């Protein structure tokens, strides 16, 4: 099977998976934990007519209480640490966390310093890492596909 075939099947399965797991759609809360705003620009681009993630039933919502998934950007600055933890605790189970961008993955260019936390996996458990500085909108869509697969496993583990 070529990579193209694999991707085609993945795209079709994404919709089915979201329907099976969440009923209708995946709701994402985007958390800026001290990002430089480049990742936010790419997240905004996701809902423009060109990339249009709403066609998969993925919505970006305004409250963590409405969300199934947190899309965290930035290296977690000292000031945003508490806000991130509070947002994580406010999200209902089952929840997913995606680290978007190199800063969220392991600190990136900011590293692990006095004011920078050095990656969100030091504060909350991360399910999927999306590297890129910033990742292209297509790379984020790919990351979401990987994340949805992980949620399937999480639910099965709980049931077992």
């Amino acid at each position: 099977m070529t990579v193209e075939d694999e991707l085609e099947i993945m795209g079709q399965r994404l919709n089915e998976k979201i329907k099976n797991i969440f009923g209708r759609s995946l709701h994402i809360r985007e958390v800026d934990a001290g990002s430089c705003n480049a990742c936010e620009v790419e997240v905004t681009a996701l809902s423009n007519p060109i990339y249009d993630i709403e066609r998969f039933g993925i919505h970006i919502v305004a409250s963590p209480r409405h969300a199934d998934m947190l899309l965290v950007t930035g290296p977690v600055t000292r000031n945003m640490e508490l806000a991130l933890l509070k947002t994580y605790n406010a999200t209902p189970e089952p929840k997913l966390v995606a680290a978007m961008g190199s800063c969220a993955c392991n600190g990136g260019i900011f590293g692990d310093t006095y004011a920078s936390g050095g990656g969100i996996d030091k504060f909350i458990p991360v399910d999927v890492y999306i590297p890129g500085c910033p990742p292209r909108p297509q790379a984020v869509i790919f990351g979401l596909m990987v994340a949805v697969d992980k949620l399937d496993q999480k639910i099965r583990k709980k049931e077992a």
Partner: protein
Amino acid sequence: MFEILRKTLKTGTVTTQYPNRPETAPEGFRGKPELFPEKCTYCGECVKACPPGVIWLNEDNDGKSLALSYCGCIFCGRCEEVCPSDAVKLTREYELASKTKDDLVTIIRRKI
């Protein structure tokens, strides 16, 4: 209003077919850095140049190894610039998302 309708019809659909149809990044896009073990001399120039410090050089009794993590990589291309033997090249691949950090590390080795 007719002007808006005319423009809408003229533009057509702009949405990409992305996950259903693979899309290549444009020319000059800096994506996943690739290491060529046969060219690498393990001189450590890329280790010094890497701004986030995600390239490591290890030396032990078995030989030398060079590890590169895409996790914190900012895709600046400095490693490609400074490499004297062209052993690093940035490709146009961008689908790097992974469930674990270990999947994002590539290691090349040379035995003595």
